[in-house]
């Protein structure tokens, strides 16, 4: 994605009405839109054209959406946002683990999808620029120096607290599942010990949140995992 050109979004959905409003919504927001109505077409389009973001419906006539995601992930890290009428937490967890960047349940509002699109695009941009400092509200995480600041005051975190923040900060704004976090921090045997995670999150929130009961930085995705709030707007102008 270049800084000046409009980002390219590939909309994959077999319902023409959905594609139509997604096209209008994205175009009004300054994106350039291409469409695919089935899985094979989507894979072909993603290989042929430079694509910055894929909006992928799960129910496709030829392939299952998760298969499409798997194929695309085999050669590309392009952000993928899943659309689905299913809202089951198990389903979400599975797709996040397959490499989905976000998950939106149908029906949804355009504003919500645009906000999420912006977040995943920004994460991609950061990954390409290699910026190691992430600012979320009054919190600053320096991944290179392994330092965390709140209002420019350095925080003392336990290794587990820092590890948690580090994993989430690698994908700011994106959900990381409980299982993923438990596996990364405590190891595979503790993959179901959600209370470990809850306690560390509680302690961490007491350090970084102004009101730990109403967190604004370290957010819970109920039944799925955690995510950090979207990073502060960078100084350079947004994509559009």
């Amino acid at each position: 994605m270049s800084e000046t050109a409009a980002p390219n979004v590939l909309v994959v959905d077999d319902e023409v009405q959905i594609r139509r409003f997604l096209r209008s919504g994205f175009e009004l927001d300054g994106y350039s839109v291409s469409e695919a109505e089935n899985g094979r077409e989507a894979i072909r389009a993603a290989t042929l054209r430079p694509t910055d973001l894929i909006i992928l419906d799960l129910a496709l006539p030829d392939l299952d959406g998760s298969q499409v995601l798997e194929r695309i992930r085999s050669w590309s890290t392009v952000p993928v946002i899943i659309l689905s009428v299913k809202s089951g937490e198990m389903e979400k967890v599975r797709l996040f683990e397959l490499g989905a960047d976000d998950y939106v349940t149908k029906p949804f509002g355009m504003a919500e999808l645009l906000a999420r699109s912006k977040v995943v695009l920004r994460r991609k941009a950061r990954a390409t620029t290699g910026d190691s400092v992430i600012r979320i509200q009054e919190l600053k995480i320096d991944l290179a120096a392994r330092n965390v600041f709140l209002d420019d005051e350095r925080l003392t975190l336990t290794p587990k607290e820092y590890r948690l923040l580090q994993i989430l900060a690698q994908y700011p704004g994106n959900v990381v599942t409980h299982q993923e976090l438990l596996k990364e921090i405590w190891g595979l045997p503790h993959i179901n010990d959600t209370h470990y995670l809850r306690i560390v999150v509680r302690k961490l929130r007491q350090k970084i949140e102004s009101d730990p009961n109403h967190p604004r930085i370290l957010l819970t995705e109920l039944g799925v995992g955690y995510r950090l709030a979207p990073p502060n707007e960078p100084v350079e102008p947004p994509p559009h």
Partner: protein
Amino acid sequence: MPGIGPVSDRALKWLRATAEPRTATGIVAAVVLVTTITASLETLKNFLDLPPVVITYLIPVLIVAIRWGFLPALVATITGAGCAAFFFYKPTHTLYVEDPARRLGLLIFVVVATVASYLAVGMRRESEIVRKREKEIRDLYAFSRRLAAGHSTEDIFNAIQKHLSTVLGRKVALFEPRGPASRSEPIGERDVPCCVRDAVSAVITGKTDAATGMTVTDDHGDLWLVHAVSPKTPDLGVVAVDLGQQTPESEEEIRARIEAVLHDAASTIEQIGLAHAITEVRMRAESERFRDALIGSVSHELRTPLASILGAATVLCNAPAVAGEPRLAALASVVREESDRLNNEIQNLLDATRITGEALQPRLEWAEVADVVNAAVERGRSRLGTHAIEIDLPAEMPLVHVDAVLIEKALGQILANSAKYSPPDSTIRIRGWQEDGVLTLAVSDQGAGLSPEDSAHLGERFFRGRRHLQSTPGSGLGFWIANAFVAANGGAIEATSLGENKGTTVTIRLPVPANVEQLESIASE
């Protein structure tokens, strides 16, 4: 005179038996038959030298015994013996018999005839019983076939009436327990006098003991027996049987028979009623499953176009051309809000089918209460309108072991109800506390409150308060879903209100596992 009483009683009974039409006919027949035999023998005597003739009189005796019973047979025996002595034994034309052998012969005849007629009567009675039993079985079979073929209660009552009138051989009217007997038309005999109808009403309403029934005499002096079909309950109907003119003894006898028939019928009906109830329940469950499957698939099909509508509406709302035109913007937001509402209703239906489809398997995990509350408030934002939400949770709440998503949805339903039934801009307060191993979340509003009727029906599926039926849209699923979701997590839900327009407080109680502190301390290490 103690000895006389029973003797005169027995004599009276004999006399009364003689008065019976059948016995009287039998006696006449006996006399006629004996006379005929005597006349024939008298004629034959002129041509043949007859050996002892007395044995010939066994013929009328047996005929009379089989046909008319013992008493006429005895008459035939005595008249037969008398005729033999009078007409055929020397000296003739007197009852005196000279020859001692003949006298002995006559005596033997009387004994043999008496014994033979006694046995014949017994045989006849037995064959009669067998025939009657056969008929009863046939009747019962026909009755059960009629019951089995019956689809409605009316068919069944018809079958009962037919069975009773066949078995009893009397005019039988059957009254269904619904409605006053004075007006409703009975099944079977239509011509039921008023006084009998009054008696039926008394039995139906329970004024008269259903187990004993009662007898009524109508204007023509006919006796009616009014009796409930089942001695336990008048619900199976009440019969009125026209007994006609009866003596106290025969009335007692027929009454016993009627009671026996009713007893049979009642137990059959009770069995059938039970089977009927079972089928009904099974059919209801079947149709409920079908309905849920239908709701499930319809809701899914509705969601797809709804996604397009809602999505397109949100694009319109933000499009510069529309946003700059307030009237158009208002219209676009109407589309958006209404499709949001529709979406919530569809979600409710889907949740409801999950509950009744037994697909509700909580995925238990450790959860932070504040996370659940925040998610419910956040996700329900569009339904909460302009209400201020006040959350009051202590800093240190224990972890709970629940399906966090189900509890969040339950809380969301409660919040949505609070918002719906309380004035705009009013405050909805969520409080949480822990006490004796129970974690309580309470949602209080300043809204419509609950009437006693509302409180009584609140947990029912599709229940909606009478006051809100017209004014506030809804499906009556919300609280029911919340209740089921909380119950699936081992918790309990309760709604209390000080009264109408005094606000409602809904509490969710969840068990706090006993080992939670231990777990928490291990995890913090």
